[in-house]
């Protein structure tokens, strides 16, 4: 694509400019993708280089270190203890003892069971005393998987700590060599609220995130490669085991079984609706919310606070109440149909939730009702920050209100709220509450239903995922596959948008 | 009350940008040192390293003979005044000033004594119960200074303390800092980008550029004998004039040839050049605006110029001139002795002649930008 110089570009007319920009954007995509891979490759290379550096440092520390350092390679914290840093040394030593104890008592067993996820399932054994068959439970696939993941995390933490222990020795040797004193236990304790305060502050939140988010996600990603479901719960019914990529094949194959739609077709349909929904849910709210904010903020409008409060009040009311109630208002025998029929405007109840197209439009409209107050608040805050002299100069230059909106307000808003629009879009893709409480996914899509659970026309990927896990069969492995696919879609969208948005480039710009 | 010694101090940021290169400086007890330079020259970074707010990448920093590289700011016994004052908005003026003393668990009676004493010196006694938000810029500045004052710290650091004030207040506060310095009698390190502040306040000036120290000296030294083009241009206002010229060997030693005029150098200049074995070469001639003499008629050894701009400053005129080969020259011309006729002739396009004696000339090597005679 031919590149124009700035001056040449200025000579183009409006449409040419637009075409040119579009052309540049699309022609830059291959390069962007290539750069992404180069970046990824660089990242991987850096990781390996870093590991290499660490390994080299570990070896050289051993070679050049004194005997205290060398013993520390086996007995963690020995160097610290020998050099008088009792507190540090004891902590290291304690960690090592706990780790070794855990590995001997439990970790080794879990790891050894990991490849098979359990060998002996529940069995019926004849009990002579009671003259009946009694079920005995043996291996537990779920626990095996969970604890082996935990053990792996623990091993990583141990290696990391071991590495710190070695670096400590190196630093201590250096400090002693330069004739200075090592930090005492008192210094260590003091640094917990001072120069190392960030570690103290992060300890609790990060532990929570690792245990309750990272670990479960890691676990669930692994589940996608097993046959864990209601019939194979790993303990009471049957053991579950590794199945490789089978679940991905099932999900992404087009062959349909038993006369119903294939999983891939169902997934494609739901994904398409999810994206359509996210698009409309985000942008209808965005523009209408901005419009309402501008109406309230217009000069000469009184009672600004009242209008705002009325809208804000609806944010406070828990969504399940308003959504459930509104869903019943639009029901066949609900208030809306009752009102319309009572006025004689319609003869027959409108199929708000019964017809696919009606239902899809209704959820978008109800979502506007939910979302506008929130967007109104955000837009108000930003509108107030637009410098008034921009408008004054535009008015002196002869811009009418519409031109002021398209040339000043909108570009400003879009620039500031770019990142927000992105999170709002991905948030809407995963907007479980609105869909589930309003329609529960209904009306049912008969072609897709037997794929898994009962899939409806308003189901998003996230509600589908929920249905899969709660259905009679509880195909957890399939839910996990869907979850991974959702992640990939969200990550792709974010990646593209992040590289286009101007306001994301530098976090410090705002500081 | 302490000396400060920086040895090979370096600041390298994560992205491999070096902000300060091998900074070496010894600051004596009770000395007032000013770091001056354009923005981004590393002066604030150096100050913040002394304060402990930035890590020192390499080298050692000693305060009172003790290496303090790894000490937290609170353990270095320093006081600091920030550019934007950094007053705690939720505390009254009294609490702001007392904050550091309370952290040190000084008895309340003594805190009262010291805070009111400082407030008296700074003339802010009547504002002690106000919050910073209710104060004017100058008052906030005083509170910030007061907060640093009560510490009786070893070293007093000031990071562009006057740059947020308007011109008039700035002059006033500058005078007050000089007074304060006499009262406190401690070591001061002061950072500014304003050469006037540097000249008026400092015992010694450290001129920095791009992370390097260009010159260290008393105000008089850096004004009279700038070691390079940058220092010569940075110190003094209006800026020193730079003209293309040639250094040639004349009958009685070195001469500077400019626009057909040959100006013989004086004895000491000759001596330096001879010692350095400088050959005839192109040079950059530097002359300060206040060191030129303006003639209305041509004379032996005068350079002909055309007037571009005539700025009336009251007691003097700043004339912007162009020489024949288009060098730009600024000269200062006191108005008191001018006749009306002469004043009228000083308008755009008219001719004028300037001369300057050898002793006010600075010569720089165009390649190295170093001074040929001032070092």
């Amino acid at each position: 694509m031919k590149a124009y110089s700035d001056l040449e570009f200025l000579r183009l007319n409006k449409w040419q400019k637009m075409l040119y920009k579009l052309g540049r954007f699309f022609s830059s995509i291959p390069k962007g993708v290539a750069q992404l891979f180069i970046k990824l490759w660089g990242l991987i290379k850096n990781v390996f280089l870093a590991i290499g550096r660490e390994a080299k440092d570990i070896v050289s520390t051993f070679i050049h270190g004194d005997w205290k350092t060398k013993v520390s390679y086996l007995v963690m914290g020995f160097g610290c203890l020998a050099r008088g840093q009792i507190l540090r040394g004891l902590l290291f030593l304690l960690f090592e003892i706990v780790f070794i104890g855990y590995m001997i008592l439990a970790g080794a067993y879990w790891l050894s069971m990991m490849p098979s996820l359990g060998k002996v399932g529940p069995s019926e054994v004849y009990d002579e005393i009671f003259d009946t068959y009694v079920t005995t439970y043996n291996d537990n696939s779920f626990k095996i998987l969970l604890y082996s993941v935990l053990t792996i995390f623990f091993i990583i933490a141990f290696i990391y700590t071991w590495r710190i222990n070695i670096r400590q020795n190196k630093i201590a040797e250096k400090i002693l060599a330069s004739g200075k004193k090592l930090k005492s236990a008192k210094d260590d304790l003091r640094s917990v609220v001072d120069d190392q305060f960030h570690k103290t502050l992060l300890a609790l939140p990060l532990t929570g995130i690792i245990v309750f988010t990272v670990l479960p996600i890691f676990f669930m990603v692994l589940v996608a490669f097993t046959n864990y479901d209601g019939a194979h719960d790993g303990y009471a019914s049957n053991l579950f085991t590794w199945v490789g990529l089978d679940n991905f094949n099932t999900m992404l194959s087009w062959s349909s079984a038993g006369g119903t739609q294939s999983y891939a077709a169902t997934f494609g349909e739901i994904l398409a609706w999810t994206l359509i929904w996210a698009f409309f849910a985000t942008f209808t709210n965005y523009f209408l919310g901005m419009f309402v904010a501008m109406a309230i903020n217009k000069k000469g409008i009184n009672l600004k606070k009242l209008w705002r409060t009325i809208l804000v009040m609806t944010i406070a009311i828990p969504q399940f109440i308003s959504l459930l109630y509104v869903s019943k208002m639009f029901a066949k025998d609900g208030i809306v149909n009752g009102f319309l029929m009572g006025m004689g405007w319609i003869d027959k109840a409108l199929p708000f939730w019964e017809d696919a197209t009606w239902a899809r439009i209704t959820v978008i409209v109800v979502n506007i009702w939910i979302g506008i107050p929130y967007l109104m608040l955000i837009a108000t805050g930003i509108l107030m920050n637009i410098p008034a002299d921009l408008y004054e100069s535009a008015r002196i230059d002869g811009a009418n209100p519409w031109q002021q909106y398209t040339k000043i307000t909108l570009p400003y808003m879009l620039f500031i709220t770019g990142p927000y629009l992105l999170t709002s879009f991905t948030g809407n893709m995963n907007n479980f509450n609105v869909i589930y409480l309003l329609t529960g996914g209904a009306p049912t899509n008969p072609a897709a239903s037997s794929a898994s659970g009962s899939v409806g026309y308003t189901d998003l990927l996230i509600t589908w995922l929920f249905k899969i896990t709660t259905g009679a069969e509880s195909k957890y492995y399939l839910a996990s596959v869907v979850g991974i696919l959702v992640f990939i879609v969200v990550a792709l969208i974010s990646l593209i948008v992040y590289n286009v948005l101007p306001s994301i480039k530098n976090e410090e710009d705002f500081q | 009350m302490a000396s400060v010694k920086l040895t090979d101090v370096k600041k390298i940021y994560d992205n491999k940008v070096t902000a300060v290169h091998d900074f070496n400086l010894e600051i004596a007890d009770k000395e007032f040192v000013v770091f001056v330079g354009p923005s981004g020259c590393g002066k604030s970074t150096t100050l913040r390293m002394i304060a402990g707010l930035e890590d020192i990448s390499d080298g050692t920093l000693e305060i009172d003979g003790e290496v303090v590289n790894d000490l937290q700011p609170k353990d270095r016994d320093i006081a600091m005044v920030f550019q934007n004052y950094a007053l705690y908005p939720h505390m009254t003026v009294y609490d702001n000033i007392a904050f550091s003393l309370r952290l040190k668990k000084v008895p309340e009676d003594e805190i009262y004594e010291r805070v009111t004493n400082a407030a008296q010196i700074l003339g802010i006694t009547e504002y002690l119960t106000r919050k910073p938000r209710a104060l004017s810029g100058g008052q906030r500045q005083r509170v910030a200074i007061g907060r640093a004052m009560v510490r009786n710290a070893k070293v007093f650091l000031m990071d562009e303390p006057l740059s947020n004030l308007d011109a008039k207040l700035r002059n006033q506060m500058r005078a007050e800092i000089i007074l304060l310095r006499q009262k406190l009698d401690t070591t001061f390190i002061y950072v500014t980008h304003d050469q006037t502040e540097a000249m008026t306040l400092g015992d010694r000036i450290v001129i920095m550029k791009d992370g390097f120290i260009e010159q260290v000296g008393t105000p008089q030294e850096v004004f009279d004998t700038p070691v390079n083009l940058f220092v010569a241009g940075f110190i003094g206002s209006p800026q020193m004039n730079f003209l293309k010229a040639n250094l040639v060997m004349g009958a009685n030693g070195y001469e500077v040839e400019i626009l057909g005029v040959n100006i013989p150098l004086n004895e000491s200049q000759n001596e330096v050049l001879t010692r350095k074995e400088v050959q005839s070469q192109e040079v950059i001639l530097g002359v300060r605006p206040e060191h030129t003499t303006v003639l209305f008629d041509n004379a032996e050894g005068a350079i002909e110029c055309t007037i571009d701009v005539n700025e009336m400053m009251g007691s003097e005129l700043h004339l912007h001139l162009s020489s024949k080969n288009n060098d730009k020259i600024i000269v200062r011309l006191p108005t008191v002795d001018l006749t009306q006729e002469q004043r009228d002739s000083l308008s755009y396009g008219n001719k004028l002649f300037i001369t300057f004696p050898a002793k006010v000339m600075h010569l720089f090597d165009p390649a190295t930008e170093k001074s040929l005679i001032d070092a």
Partner: protein
Amino acid sequence: MSETSMKRHMGLRASRAISNTLIYVLLIAISIIWLIPFFCIVLQSFRVESTWQVGYVIPKQWGFDNYVNLFSTDFPRWYVNTFITAVCTALLQTVIVLCMSYTLSRFRFKMRKPLMRFMLILGMFPGMLTMIILYRVLKDLGLTQANATPGLILVYVASSGMGYYVSKGFFDTIPKSLDEAARVDGATRFQVLKKIILPLSKPIVIYTVLTAFMGPWGDFVFARYISFGASAGMNVAVGLYNWLTPDQINKNYTMFCSGGVLVAVPVTLLFLFLQKYYVEGVTGGAVKG
């Protein structure tokens, strides 16, 4: 003034009057649309003559029967469960979120950027996925079904560090030179937080407490998963949802309305009372992204 310019002036005023009138009409219409569902819910909560859904709004017979009947159900239990969850979550979550956001705003350590990027990526996984395993783990700990309340608090609080964006945005607006001045004045980092930053952070602390408090009142999916059919462990959202399932709706529709009113009123009042802080947080958060 010439005649044409007189006309132009009149025109400006007239057109402004027209556009303002239009906006008033619009705002009134919006207010009605936004408030109608809540009017209806309140009105129907007082309906005595029938308990199922009807096509009219104004009750034929008024009374407090629905409210009284609530107390013979598990509703009080659900209410207490939700209240306990909300209070505990509000307290603990605030501590965690503030620790996280303050650290990420104020400290420059090597892992800061990777950490933030990692949490961004983590947030792209549908959180619901983790429910399956969390349910099994909590079940082993005995924190599900009837004992769901502590389990739910644990789940809400544990991962709340990832929601640091809004308060980090707030902390970023407090000048760093305040921290630096305090550190030079002899404060440890902990003292800086306690004596300088926290007193200046009242708006964001209130915002965090408020949102953390309101969250549990509306959460449906986690609460339902973890209480798993045990009425004693449900929160109001799950409990009331079950009253609207097809087999219960005819018996409990009006009671749902009265329950909804009882839930909404205190939360809404609290919210309106602290509205200012919420608005600050929301607008600040959106600008920061």
